[in-house]
């Protein structure tokens, strides 16, 4: 075993990919060869450095959102293959998993919420400072927008005025108005479905507040992600009796939602008000003509268990 061989195999050694005999020999070699020992140390340091880009387990909500989308795609694919059984990834079980996941302990860390703070920056001459602005992602990512650029006449100086975005975080009870405002904002306008799912989940505990219910209703009606819609539905369920707007939104979901999981959730949420005339009519319609056998059967069952009405 010579130094060249060792240098070629340090990587394999540290990744535990050398055969036992080769490993033993390599260890004997580095015990007496300083150069190779240094190479091992350097490679070890390199590996430690690479770990600064940590591998994180996908959060429960990210996974749940992915599964919900997959369920939809599989149902579509399944129709092509004409399988009889429908996919039922048991969305409520996922929600339970989302709810108890440790990821949610840090729920209220709303990272990256952009607050616009005006900042001034004078760029001096070509080729000096501007390079650091343009090439450093650290700076570039903080720039919210450039508002003006003025050139000083007769010199090579320019004054660039821009807004800086600063990440901030807030931690507190869901009842805290500031936190609640952020959650309401995130539930409606965040592009990341995982963030929306988490905010809707946090808000469900405060659904007795009409403002929160309004946001949950919005999510149930318009959110593009079925996981978020299902979560919103879960929070609204107990208000179908007392809040007519909630009842209407759930009824709308039952009739029109593209996701079968959301529709069956809506169906069950409406059970306590199944005697209500609008719900009854919807159930009758669904029991006759819904494409999903599950919805047809369940609607029939709910109609059959209806108290006799004059």
């Amino acid at each position, binding site marked *: 075993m010579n130094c060249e061989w060792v240098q*070629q195999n340090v*990587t*394999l050694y540290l*990744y535990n*990919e050398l055969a036992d005999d080769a490993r033993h020999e390599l260890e004997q070699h580095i015990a007496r060869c300083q150069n190779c020992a240094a190479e091992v140390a*350097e*490679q070890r340091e*390199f*590996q430690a*450095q*690479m770990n*600064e*880009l940590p*591998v*994180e*387990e*996908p959060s429960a909500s*990210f*996974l749940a*959102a*992915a*599964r919900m*989308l*997959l369920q939809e*795609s*599989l149902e579509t*694919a*399944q129709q092509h293959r004409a*399988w*009889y*059984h*429908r*996919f039922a*990834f048991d969305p409520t079980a996922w929600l339970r*998993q989302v709810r108890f*996941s*440790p990821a949610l302990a*840090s729920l209220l*860390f709303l*990272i*990256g919420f952009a607050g616009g703070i005006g900042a001034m920056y004078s760029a001096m001459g070509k080729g000096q400072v501007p390079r650091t602005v*343009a*090439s450093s*992602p*650290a700076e*570039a*990512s903080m720039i919210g927008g450039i508002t003006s650029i003025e050139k000083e006449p007769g010199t090579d100086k320019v004054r660039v005025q821009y807004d800086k975005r600063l*990440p901030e*975080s807030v931690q507190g009870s869901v009842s805290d108005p500031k936190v609640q405002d952020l959650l309401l904002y995130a539930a409606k306008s965040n592009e*990341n479905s*995982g963030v929306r799912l988490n905010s809707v989940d946090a808000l469900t505990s405060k659904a007795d507040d009409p403002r929160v219910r309004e946001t949950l209703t919005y999510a149930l009606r318009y959110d593009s992600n079925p996981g978020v819609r299902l979560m919103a539905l879960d929070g609204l369920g107990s208000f179908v009796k007392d809040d007519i707007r909630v009842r209407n939104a759930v009824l709308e979901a039952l009739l029109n939602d593209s996701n079968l999981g959301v529709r069956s959730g809506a169906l069950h949420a409406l059970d306590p008000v199944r005697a209500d005339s609008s719900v009854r009519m919807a159930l009758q319609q669904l029991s006759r003509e819904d494409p999903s056998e599950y919805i047809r059967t369940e609607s029939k069952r709910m109609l059959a268990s209806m108290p006799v009405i004059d």
Partner: protein
Amino acid sequence: MPAEAVAVPLTVGPGLRTPQTRRAADETSSTPTDRGWAVGQAQSRMNDTELIREAQRGNTAAFEELVRQYDGAVLRLAYHLTRSEQDAQDIYQEAFLKAYRNINNFRFECSFYTWIYRIVTNLCLDLLRKRQVRKEDSGVTTDSEGGSYDLLDQVADVRSGASPERDLMRRELGARIAKALQKLTPRERMVFEMKHYQGLKLRTIGEILNTTEETAKNTLFRGTQKLRAALRDMR
């Protein structure tokens, strides 16, 4: 696919825990335990075979169970590799849809594990190749939708409580590493990802990439050298 691939051992890092065992581990957060994992691992080949047979007969519940066993690992790999939730999500969807459509072509010549990883790595390689064409050297790169995102933003801050300065330093280092990783060819990137970050054995990586263990070794060596040089240059 080589016949010997059937015997691929499922000893690949912490990633392959099923959601059930992962949850069990999470519940006892301070001392993560792999309770049931060893047993589950021994049984998993047999279970997979049964599940695949059932799925091939048209049992959707069996296919769902297969998805549940592997999807956490798939999402983790895709997200770490692409640093984009949207791209990871797309790869996840496409991989399992492909698996679903082709489950009847699965001939048990390799493990389901190797098979699903093969699908995922091919999708990842496609994406990396597309990105490489569009790559700009500013640290701003594009996701598959063509939208741009910043590498720094992709180094998510999950370690709460750290000071803002330390946090920024960590994020900058993360961005530097991400930039260095961009210097690799898609294949080198893939091998490095599977070895360094996902902890797979080189033999498994070779099988997944339809190549020999020796080739995987050489690719890993080349990739590592490039990364070390790139990080040195950035100092």
